[in-house]
């Protein structure tokens, strides 16, 4: 469905030095600096996948999404959608994609939402019948009809994002790119948006590529994760496999009846305060049950709980903190 091949993007940056001297210097020799925002990314995405595309601020996620959606011309490398190069055949290929940026709207501020939709209907040459059906379907998921006569300028962030989502789906694209769609949304809007993504993926087999800093989004939606940093691929794989590989441990939290906490086999006590102690163990070495059995021979246990390494630990490690 999507092939990203050795994709690179450099931005040119005019370096401005402060002061008069700097201004003069810039006049004589405009210091042009290159930022390697994306460096040699390659990956393949199958039809129907929901892929979480994550990385810290400035990692190059938005830059990659913009190249995949025809906005930026790659410095080198290519993006193929259904086998066609989006840089060379932009007008044809973009018929298959929808794009939403959470941070900025693709809609016209001055128009009512419905007018923007109407214009898009003509731009994408959508049949009235298909158009009505799509609007009805999206309305049943997102409840769009109540804001359709409102100018975009007067919308709340949540309403605007909903509008952008519907606009991006009007032409029933096979691929949907979402760059931080949940940013700034309240809990219920976020929930609605996740439901929307799941539904269109299930009902229409839409392929979704999603960037987010919200771990909840990833846990709820993504089976596959691509992690980048400094424009370079760090991880690409199944979410649970990555978790198992990067964080192959669990932590057992034990509460005893007094402050003495014993050691146990195949695990390490990483914290001990008051009656509570934490034991970290590798999943391959032992099980929580064995450790509990071991500990209870030496001390009386009051309570236990297990902490799994979460997605946030994964990201911390993968980002290299």
């Amino acid at each position, binding site marked *: 469905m999507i092939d990203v091949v050795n994709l690179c993007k450099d931005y*040119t940056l005019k370096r401005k030095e402060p002061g008069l001297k700097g201004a003069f210097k810039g006049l004589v020799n405009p210091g042009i600096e290159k930022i390697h925002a994306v460096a040699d990314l390659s990956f393949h995405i199958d039809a129907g996948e929901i892929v979480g595309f994550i990385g810290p601020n400035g990692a190059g996620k938005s830059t990659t999404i913009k190249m995949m959606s025809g906005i*930026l011309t790659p410095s080198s490398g290519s993006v193929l959608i259904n086998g066609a190069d989006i840089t060379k055949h932009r007008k044809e290929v973009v018929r298959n994609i929808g*794009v939403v940026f959470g941070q900025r709207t693709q809609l016209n501020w001055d128009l009512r939402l419905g007018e923007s939709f109407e214009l898009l209907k003509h731009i994408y*040459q959508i049949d009235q019948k298909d158009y009505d059906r799509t609007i009805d379907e999206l309305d049943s998921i997102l409840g769009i009809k109540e804001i359709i006569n409102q100018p975009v300028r007067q919308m709340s962030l949540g309403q605007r994002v909903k509008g952008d989502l519907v606009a991006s789906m009007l032409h029933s694209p096979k691929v949907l790119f979402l760059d931080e769609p949940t940013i700034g949304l309240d809990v219920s809007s976020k929930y609605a948006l996740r439901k929307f993504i799941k539904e269109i993926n299930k009902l229409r087999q839409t392929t979704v590529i999603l960037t987010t800093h919200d771990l909840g989004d990833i846990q709820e939606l993504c089976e596959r994760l691509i992690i980048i940093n400094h424009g370079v691929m760090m991880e690409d794989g199944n979410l649970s496999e990555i978790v198992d590989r990067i964080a192959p441990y669990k932590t057992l939290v034990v509460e005893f009846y007094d402050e003495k906490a014993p050691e146990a086999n195949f695990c390490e006590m990483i914290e001990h305060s008051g009656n509570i102690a934490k034991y970290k163990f590798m999943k391959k070495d032992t099980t929580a049950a064995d450790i509990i059995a071991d500990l209870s021979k030496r001390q009386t246990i009051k309570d236990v709980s297990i902490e799994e390494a979460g997605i946030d630990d994964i990201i911390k490690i993968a980002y290299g903190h």
Partner: protein
Amino acid sequence: MKKAFKELGHYLDVTIQVIKMAFLTIVEYPANIAGWMISNPIQFIVGFATIKFVVESFGEINGWNYGQLAFLYGLSVMSHALSMIFFVQGWFMGYFVLEGDFDRYLTRPMSVLYQFFFTNINIFGITDLIPGILVFVYGCIKCAVQVTPFFVLQVLVMLIGATLIRGGIYIFLGSTSFYTKSTTDFGMYTQEIMDKTTLYPISMYPESLQFILTYLIPIGWVSFYPVSSLLGIENSVLNGMVVPFVTLLVGLLVITLSGLFFKAGLKKYESAGN
């Protein structure tokens, strides 16, 4: 061939939709258009009154009498108005480049330049069209021109050509922002230069400037040459019935070249970070 027609149909359909929507905004904000109706024409009527004053004091400008000047002035204002309707967005291209506002056009299956201009049609530009038409009709009467179908065709063709030349120049100037990564408000300056070189005969300027305005920045073809031809006033470059059609040709050339310049610039487009 069939594909080309289909594509043309697509663009026509969107254009009709866009114009429909533009007229709806007039219906929706009648106060706006009323304001423009008053302020814009006043500007041009005052300009025209100035000519009248000059001509009355000196008899004529460079061999052009009052009626002929009105004819020239009117046609120039008309093509100015048309360029304000369809191409004024070019003045703001730099902001679109720097603020990443081309993103939305790039993700849609039509020409970026087409979307940039036509989804931002400035319907209020028609308020400039009215004084243009009035002064032009006045000039026609003063010069006692014979309004034949061929004359009408010539006028329409030269208006299209002149509008394309103006639009092409805006596109060219706006596109420099892709290369410089900065924006200049060239709109007002350009307007001033255009006014000075299209509202009056360029034969009143030094020859070197006339050369530039004929061959380098082809503003002379916006009004001076085609109007000379329509009125039968001789000039040293090109005479005859064909001149209005040459204006159209020049227009097509200018808009094609600046379109290519834009396209090359768009490859350098960097959107905007957040």
